C-alpha cells in the first residue's frame, strides 16, 4: 500500500492505494451520504446512496477503491435524482410514529430524508404485515426497518456470531412501470428492499448469540432496540459521559448515557451505553452491564475510622485488578511509605510472565495490539478462551477472517463452537491441558526462522520430525481407449452400416501410492487431525502479516516462565507480532505500577477481595468504595493505551484517596496522581484533564496515550526448557466465565442474568448421566464445592467450566494456580 493523491470535489486528498473512496473522503472531512456502510466491515451495497462519479463513471464510494490521480465528484444532477428517489423509497410505508420511536431524532432516515429534501412521495406499494419481534434482549420492529443490513454486516464481519440474515418479506412485486420511470439505482435498491426483512439465522424466533447488542447500536433507525431501554427515555434528554469500559482488559471506548432516575428520583441513572460503533465494538457485558455502581454508599464515619485503624494495623494489602492506575499508584506509594505487602496473585503472575518475556525480547511490553490484529492475515491464539477472556480479541480475529481475508489457528483445550463458527479458515486444535508449550514449539517449528533460532532449539524441534511412509490414494484420470460400434451412413452407397470406431475417454481411477512424508510428532502430541498440515498450507497462501495472541492460561501455568520465553522467541524469530491478553480490567496497569508480593502477612486489608478488613466497590465490605463507573481515573488496556474514564454516577461515600489522605498523603482528588504514574515503565507525565477520549473521522483513536515500550536489558540467555509430557486427563475443570460475565461487578448488574453454576456442554450432558439443574459436588486436590449444573451451548467437548464471577461459588478454591485442574464430579 502506498500513498496516493486523489481529487474529491476539487480538493486534493492524500490516501492509501486501494482505500475505499468513502473512507478517504471521511478521513478528509468530505461528506458523502451513506447508510449501509460500516467502517472496518465489508461493503454491503444495500443503500446505494453513496453514489459518486469517479473519472466520469458512477461508482459506489463504499466499495470503489482509490487509484492514483482519480477525480471524484460527490454530486451530479443524476446522482441527486438517484439519492432523492432512494430516500423517497425508504419513506414508503415507513410509520409516521417518530414521536414514540426510541431513535428519537438520532435517525439517519430522518436526517437523509430532510437532507435530500423529500417533500413529496411518488412511489407506493401495498404494505405487508410487519409486526414486531421480541428477541429477548433485543426488540425488532420490521415496520421501522429499512433493511440496510448494517446489523447483519456487524454480526458477520465484526462479532462473528452470524445470528442475523435477511429473510423474505413476502411482499407483492413492484409495479412494472417503475422500472422505466424510476432512476436506475433507486429501482434496484427498492427491488431488493421489497424482498427482504431481517430475521434470525437459526430459523426460529429465539435469538441465541453472544448477546453483544452491537446490531442494535449500529441500527440507523429505531428498528432494533435494546429491550431494557425501550421507551424509557428520549435520546436528547440523556447526558453522555465519555468513559472506558471497566469489565475486561480491552478498555473499550463507551459513553454512559445518564439522566435523572425518575420524577421522584433526581439522582442520575445510566439508561444505556453507547459506543463509536464504527471504530469500536462492545461485548454484552460492556453494553448491558452498566449498573454496577455502589449505589447506597454513604459517608459512614465509624467505618472510615475503622478502615484507617485497619490500615495502621495491617501489614498486607490484597486487591484485584479492577482498579484504576491511580489507585494502583496509591497502593504502591503506601507500600513505599508504610512497607505493606501488596498481594494480587493474578497480576503477579502476569508481571512475572512479562518480566520473563522481557529478558529475551528486550522490551518491557509485547510488540503489537488488537488494532493491528484486525488487519492481520494470519492469527494464532494460544492459551486463552478468547470469547470470554477478551471479547474484543475474538472480534479482531473474526474481523481479520472475514474482512482481511485472514486465517486463524486456535489452540485451546476447551472446544468452542463460537470460535469454530467464525468461518472455514479458522483451524482449532483441542490439545490436552498443560500442553501449551507444545503448541508454542509447534508455532516455532512451523514459522520460526530456523537459521537465526538458537541451535539447540532447532535441534530440539528437529527431534520431533521423522519420515514416514504413508499410503495415499489419489484419484488420477486415465486415458482409456474404447472400441465402439457406431451406425454410420456410407456416403458412397447411401446405406447405413455399422463401423467400429476407436474413442478415447478420460476415466477417473483410484491409485494407491506410497509416499514418504514428514511426520511431525508435535502435531500428534497436540492432537491435531491428519489433515492439519494440508489445511494449514492452504490457509497460509497469500498471507503476509502474522499475529500471536497469548492468554491467561499461560500466566498461571506451572511452566509459565518457560512459556514466556517461548513466546518471546516466537516474536523474535518469526514474523509473528505478539499480543498478550491481560486477565482483568487493569492487570497490565497494576503489573507495571505495583511491586507485588506472593504471600500475605498476618493482617490483611482487602480491596474488592477477601481479607481481615474489606474495602468493597460491590458494597458488601466493611467500608464502601466506588465502582469503576463512579470513578475518575485511567485504565491500561490490552492495546497498551492509558484510557481515561469519567464518573457516570454520583458516589457519596469514601474512596481510597480519603484513606490515603488520613494516612498522611495529600491529594485533593485521586486523579492528581495521574501525572505521577511511573515514566520508567512507559507512562507519561500527563495530567488527567488533558487526556482526550474520542475517535477522529478517519478512525484514529485519540484516547489517553499509548504506553512507551521501554527497552529492557537482556541477558543473552535464550535457552528454553523442553516440555514435559504431563497432561491432565479424565475429568477436567476449567476456570472461565460464561459469555458476558467477568467479575462480581458484572454479576451485580440487572441486565446480565447468566446463571452461575457448573457449566457443562450439551454434548457432555448427553453423554454423561448429569442433567441440567442437578446439584453436584466438584472435588479437586485443592478443595471442593457444591453447585448446580448449568447447560452451556457456547462450549463443547467434555471439559467442565467453572466461573469466577460468582463470589458465592468461590471456584478459585478448586484450582492451584493453573486454570485447569483434574477433578471428580458426583451428584449430591
Amino acid at each position, binding site marked *: 500500500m502506498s500513498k496516493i493523491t486523489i481529487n474529491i470535489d476539487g480538493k486534493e486528498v492524500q490516501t492509501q492505494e486501494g482505500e475505499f473512496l468513502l473512507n478517504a473522503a471521511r478521513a478528509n472531512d468530505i461528506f458523502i451520504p451513506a447508510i449501509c456502510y460500516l467502517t472496518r466491515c465489508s461493503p454491503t451495497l444495500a443503500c446505494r446512496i453513496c453514489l459518486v462519479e469517479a473519472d466520469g463513471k458512477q461508482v459506489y464510494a463504499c466499495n470503489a477503491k482509490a487509484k492514483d490521480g482519480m477525480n471524484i465528484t460527490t454530486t451530479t444532477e443524476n446522482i441527486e435524482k438517484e439519492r432523492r428517489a432512494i430516500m423517497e423509497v425508504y419513506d414508503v410505508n415507513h410509520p409516521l410514529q417518530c*414521536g*414514540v420511536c426510541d431513535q428519537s431524532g438520532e435517525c439517519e432516515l430522518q436526517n437523509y430524508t430532510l437532507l435530500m429534501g423529500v417533500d413529496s412521495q411518488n412511489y407506493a406499494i401495498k404494505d405487508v404485515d410487519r409486526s414486531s419481534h421480541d428477541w429477548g434482549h433485543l426488540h425488532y420492529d420490521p415496520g421501522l426497518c429499512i433493511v440496510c443490513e448494517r446489523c447483519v454486516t456487524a454480526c458477520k464481519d465484526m462479532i462473528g456470531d452470524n445470528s442475523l440474515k435477511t429473510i423474505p418479506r413476502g411482499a407483492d412485486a413492484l409495479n412494472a412501470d417503475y422500472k422505466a420511470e424510476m432512476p436506475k439505482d433507486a429501482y434496484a435498491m427498492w427491488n431488493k428492499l421489497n424482498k427482504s426483512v431481517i430475521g434470525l439465522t437459526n430459523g426460529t424466533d429465539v435469538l441465541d448469540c453472544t448477546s453483544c447488542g452491537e446490531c442494535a447500536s449500529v441500527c440507523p433507525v429505531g428498528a432494533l432496540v435494546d429491550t431494557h431501554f425501550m421507551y*424509557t*427515555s*428520549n435520546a436528547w434528554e440523556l447526558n453522555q459521559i465519555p468513559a472506558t469500559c471497566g469489565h475486561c482488559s480491552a478498555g473499550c471506548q463507551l459513553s454512559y448515557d445518564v439522566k435523572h432516575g425518575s420524577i421522584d428520583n433526581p439522582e442520575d441513572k445510566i439508561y444505556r451505553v453507547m459506543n463509536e460503533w464504527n471504530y469500536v465494538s462492545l461485548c454484552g457485558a460492556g453494553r448491558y452491564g452498566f449498573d454496577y455502581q455502589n449505589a447506597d454508599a454513604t459517608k459512614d464515619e465509624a467505618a472510615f475510622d475503622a478502615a484507617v485503624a485497619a490500615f495502621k494495623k495491617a501489614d498486607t494489602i490484597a486487591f484485584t485488578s479492577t482498579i484504576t492506575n491511580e489507585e494502583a499508584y496509591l497502593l504502591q506509594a503506601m507500600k513505599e511509605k508504610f512497607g505493606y505487602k501488596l498481594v494480587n496473585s493474578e497480576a503477579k503472575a502476569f508481571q512475572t510472565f512479562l518480566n520473563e518475556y522481557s529478558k529475551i525480547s528486550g522490551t518491557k511490553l509485547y510488540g503489537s495490539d488488537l488494532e493491528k490484529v484486525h488487519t492481520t492475515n494470519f492469527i494464532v491464539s494460544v492459551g486463552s478462551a478468547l470469547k470470554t477472556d477478551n471479547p474484543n480479541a475474538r472480534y479482531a480475529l473474526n474481523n481479520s477472517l472475514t474482512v482481511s481475508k485472514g486465517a486463524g489457528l486456535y489452540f485451546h483445550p476447551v472446544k468452542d463452537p463460537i470460535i469454530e463458527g467464525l468461518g472455514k479458515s479458522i483451524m482449532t486444535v483441542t490439545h490436552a491441558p498443560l500442553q501449551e508449550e507444545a503448541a508454542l514449539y509447534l508455532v516455532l517449528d512451523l514459522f520460526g526462522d530456523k537459521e537465526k533460532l538458537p541451535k539447540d532449539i532447532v535441534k530440539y524441534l528437529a527431534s520431533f520430525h521423522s519420515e514416514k511412509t504413508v499410503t495415499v490414494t489419489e484419484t488420477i484420470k486415465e486415458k482409456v481407449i474404447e472400441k465402439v460400434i457406431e451406425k454410420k451412413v456410407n456416403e458412397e452407397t447411401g446405406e447405413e452400416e455399422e463401423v467400429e470406431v476407436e474413442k478415447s475417454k478420460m476415466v477417473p481411477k483410484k491409485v494407491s501410492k506410497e509416499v514418504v512424508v514428514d511426520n511431525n510428532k508435535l502435531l500428534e502430541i497436540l492432537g491435531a487431525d491428519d489433515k492439519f498440515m494440508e489445511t494449514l498450507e492452504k490457509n497460509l497462501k497469500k498471507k503476509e502479516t502474522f499475529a500471536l495472541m497469548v492468554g491467561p492460561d499461560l500466566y498461571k501455568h506451572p511452566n509459565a516462565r518457560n512459556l514466556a520465553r517461548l513466546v518471546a522467541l516466537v516474536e523474535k524469530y518469526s514474523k509473528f507480532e505478539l499480543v498478550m491478553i491481560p486477565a482483568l480490567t487493569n492487570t497490565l496497569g497494576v503489573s507495571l505500577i505495583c511491586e507485588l508480593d506472593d504471600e500475605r502477612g498476618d493482617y490483611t486489608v482487602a480491596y474488592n477481595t477477601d481479607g481481615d478488613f474489606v474495602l468493597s466497590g460491590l458494597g458488601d465490605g466493611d467500608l464502601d468504595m466506588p465502582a469503576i463507573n463512579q470513578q475518575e481515573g485511567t485504565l491500561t488496556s490490552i492495546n497498551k493505551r492509558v484510557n481515561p474514564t469519567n464518573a457516570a454516577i454520583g458516589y457519596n461515600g469514601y474512596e481510597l484517596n480519603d484513606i490515603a489522605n488520613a494516612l498522611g498523603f495529600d491529594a485533593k482528588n485521586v486523579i492528581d496522581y495521574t501525572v505521577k504514574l511511573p515514566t520508567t515503565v512507559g507512562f507519561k507525565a500527563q495530567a488527567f484533564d488533558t487526556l482526550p477520549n474520542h475517535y477522529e473521522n478517519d478512525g484514529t483513536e485519540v484516547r489517553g496515550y499509548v504506553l512507551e515500550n521501554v527497552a529492557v536489558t537482556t541477558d543473552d540467555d535464550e535457552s528454553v526448557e523442553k516440555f514435559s509430557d504431563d497432561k491432565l486427563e479424565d475429568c477436567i475443570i476449567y476456570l472461565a466465565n460464561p459469555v458476558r460475565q467477568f467479575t462480581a461487578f458484572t454479576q451485580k448488574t440487572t441486565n446480565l442474568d447468566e446463571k452461575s453454576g457448573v457449566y457443562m456442554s450439551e454434548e457432555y450432558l448427553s453423554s454423561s448421566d448429569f442433567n441440567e439443574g442437578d446439584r453436584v459436588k466438584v472435588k479437586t486436590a485443592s478443595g471442593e464445592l457444591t453447585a448446580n449444573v448449568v447447560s452451556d451451548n457456547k462450549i463443547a467437548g467434555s471439559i467442565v467450566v467453572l466461573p469466577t464471577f460468582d463470589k458465592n461459588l468461590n471456584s478459585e478454591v478448586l484450582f492451584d494456580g493453573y486454570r485447569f485442574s483434574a477433578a471428580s464430579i458426583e451428584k449430591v
Partner: protein
Amino acid sequence: MKMEAFNDRNVADNGYFLVDIEDYPTDGWGKFKRVVKRSFRGELFVGLWVVMREMIRFDIHTVQYPQEKMPIGPRYRAVHQMKRLWESDTERCIGCGLCEKICISDCIRIDTKIDENSRKEVSEYTINLGRCIFCGYCAEVCPELAITHGGEYENASDQREHFILYEDMLTPIDTMKAGKQLEFEGFGSITPHEDERVKKTPLAY
C-alpha cells in the same frame, strides 16, 4: 445577522421626542411657590368626589371575586389540560417528550415505559406550576393536541413548588363521555382549512 439595528444608537431619529416639561425651580422662592401650588390644588377632592358619586348611584363595576368570575377567552393560557381522543376516549398523549424538551422554564418532567401491549406509556407526568411561565410552547409543540392550556387560573399555593400531575390535567372520563371536552383554540390548535393544505401519501391500496 445584520448588525445595523444594533449599531444605530441614535434613538431620537426613530420617532422619539422630548416631553415639554417645565424647568425645575432652582432658587428658594421658586421652590416655595411650587409647594404652595401643589398643596392647595384640591386634586385629592376630585378623586373623593368620584367615589362618593358612584356610591350614591350604586353603579358598581367591580367583579365580586371570588363569588363572581369573569368569563375566560378560549385562547387564555392558564393551567394545562390533557385531552382525550374523541374516537376512543383514550388519552391523546403518546409520551413523545417534546413538551419536556421545549419547556423554557424546565418545569415539565415525564417518565415513560413500555406497557403490556408493547406501546409507549406515560407512567408519570408533572408540571411544576411554580416555575411555569404559561408561555404556551408545550401546547404549540404537541403533535397530538394532547397538552393544551385551560381556563383554570387559580393556582395559588402555600409553597413555591407546586406540582400538577397527569391525572389532575386529564379530562375526566365522565366529562368525556358526556361529550363536554372543550377544544383549545390557542397555540398549537388546528388552523382553519388545515385539511386542504395537507398532502396525502400515495398508497397503492
